[in-house]
């Protein structure tokens, strides 16, 4: 057996640390388990006894109700998917195109272009003028483009990529490519990009997360059901049911008009959440390894 590592903490402190992290890891995952458990519970036992981590009575009623609204759910999944894929690809391309020339030390006036983008980190026009540009000038209300455009180019990602290009691609490689007769575009596409896969993947992952999780753009730009994203659909489900259950006169009105009240409100709400969380939780194990690596790339400041 190896002798005790002088840099390691004592056995007792080690077990305290482990206990702490176990507790914390549980705290990170329990809320998600709770939502899953509620969604598979029977509505009447939930109403009577409250939410439990283990369903008292198993039931799929909530999902049956959701299934009736399948059309809208699938449609919103489609919108979210298209926005995420198109947005991420375009965003990475745009970021790389802006960051690469910035990383070239021999490029005159690159300082101006750097200022042009980094100034937007310091000052902005605020929500009102920005909204008016999108709605009145570009006329993008209810357009899927309004869900893609705003998140396309982030100065921070440009900074991360520029730093990577400048530090990780040796100038001598660029020079030898030039001597071999490669033009700038060819050098960029054939040499710089393949060498930069880690940072490309990082920006792509962050971008995917931004697009997939966005609901704000749907809220301010979209009023048409056909173009709302999954997150926004979840948002509306949450508020609509919340509204029904907290306003007793509204619900009594509905019941007097023919009764929707046997709707399994609470479990239905959480089933919707599960439908929304699903893809993330399923993709997470594949995702997070690269994500941790990517964070590490981003953290190394240049």
């Amino acid at each position: 057996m190896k002798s005790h590592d002088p840099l390691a903490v004592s056995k007792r402190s080690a077990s305290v640390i482990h206990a702490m992290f176990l507790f914390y890891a549980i705290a990170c995952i329990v809320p998600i388990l709770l939502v899953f458990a509620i969604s598979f519970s029977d509505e009447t036992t939930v109403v009577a006894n409250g939410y439990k981590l283990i369903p008292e009575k198993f039931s799929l009623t909530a999902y049956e109700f959701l299934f009736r609204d399948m059309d809208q759910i699938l449609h919103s999944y489609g919108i979210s998917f298209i926005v995420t894929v198109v947005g991420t690809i375009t965003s990475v391309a745009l970021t790389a195109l802006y960051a690469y020339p910035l990383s070239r030390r021999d490029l005159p006036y690159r300082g101006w272009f750097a200022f042009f983008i980094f100034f937007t980190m310091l000052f902005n026009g605020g929500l009102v003028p920005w909204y008016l540009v999108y709605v009145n000038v570009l006329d993008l209300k209810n357009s899927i483009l309004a869900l893609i455009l705003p998140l396309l180019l982030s100065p921070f990602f440009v900074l991360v990529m520029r730093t990577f290009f400048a530090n990780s691609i040796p100038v001598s490689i660029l020079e030898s490519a030039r001597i071999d007769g490669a033009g700038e575009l060819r050098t960029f596409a054939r040499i710089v990009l393949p060498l930069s896969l880690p940072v490309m993947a990082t920006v792509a992952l962050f971008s995917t997360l931004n697009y997939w999780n966005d609901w704000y753009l749907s809220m301010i730009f979209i009023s048409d059901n056909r173009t709302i994203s999954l997150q926004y659909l979840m948002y509306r489900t949450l508020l609509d049911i919340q509204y029904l259950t907290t306003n007793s006169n509204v619900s009594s009105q509905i019941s007097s008009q023919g009764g929707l009240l046997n709707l399994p409100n609470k479990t239905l709400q959480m089933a919707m959440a599960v439908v929304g969380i699903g893809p993330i939780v399923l993709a997470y194990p594949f995702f997070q390894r690269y994500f941790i690596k990517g964070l590490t790339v981003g953290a190394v400041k240049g």
Partner: protein
Amino acid sequence: MKTQPQAGKGVRILEIPERSVRKRKSVWHNLGKFKVLYLMFLPGVLFLLVNNYMPMFGVLIAFKNVNYADGIWGSPWSGWDNFKYLFSTSDAWEITRNTLAYNTVFIALNLFVGVGLAILLNEVKNKAMSKLYQSLMLLPYFLSMIVVSYLVLAFLGKDSGFMNSTILQMFGGQPIDWYSEPKYWPYILPLVNTWKNIGYYAVIYLAAVVGIDEEYYEAAVLDGATKWHQIRFITIPFLVPLIVIMTLLQIGRIFYADFSLFYQVPLESGALFPVTNVLDTYVYRTFLIGGDIGMSSAAGLYQAIVGFVLVLVSNTIVRRIDKDNALF
């Protein structure tokens, strides 16, 4: 120009980059030589012009008395009236206080909890366990704020929420109507924010801790340094540049709030507005729900200008202390 020796195609080798020669190279020469690289900027520049620079001119709306008959640009100027209205309401003080107070707490928690977790995680020598903890800690960061608001509701719902139905019952407490009791939210919001984001900060700081050369610690142990000494005199000093950058980035945004957190997680409960209304939610509500373009533009400009000043001030302070750590 004419007196300069022209470097012809055949005599490129004579092109000595002397100062006098370089200075005379015209803008056009540079643009031509690097035209592909400049063209690469083009899509980004166009995007920034539309998405960022065009709205900057729109800040003038804050000085207009907008009415729909004349249109936005045709409406009469109103000077500082919009600002006078804004600051005569109690809202102005409330949203400023909330935005600054919450963000200060968030920054402090992100710093202390983030660095603390990173240092402790570095002591977990079991590779598999360490990876497991990292993965689970980072999971909340992947969830959207909508999902988080569902999770919070599952805990804090009035009738069936886990807190009321299980935890408080276990300790014999009375059920609490969380969504209409403002006094709890100054604790709930930082808790939610930290729960969601701390994995991200912990992993970033951990990357830096792992990067520190083991030899420093070995030498310190030989000199009789305890674990505590090592953390204080080796780990922390090595982390300072990263801590400064991360904190500076957050201070630069201190006048902005995470809209999703403040709008979505309290489920827009009106009873909670005194403790959940921040600049971003205020601007949104007065503009898109209230329809008051003048007042919301004024609040937006107030936010943008104070934010701008705060970035410059914090950057200047860092630059005074240590030039290398400044952002620009």
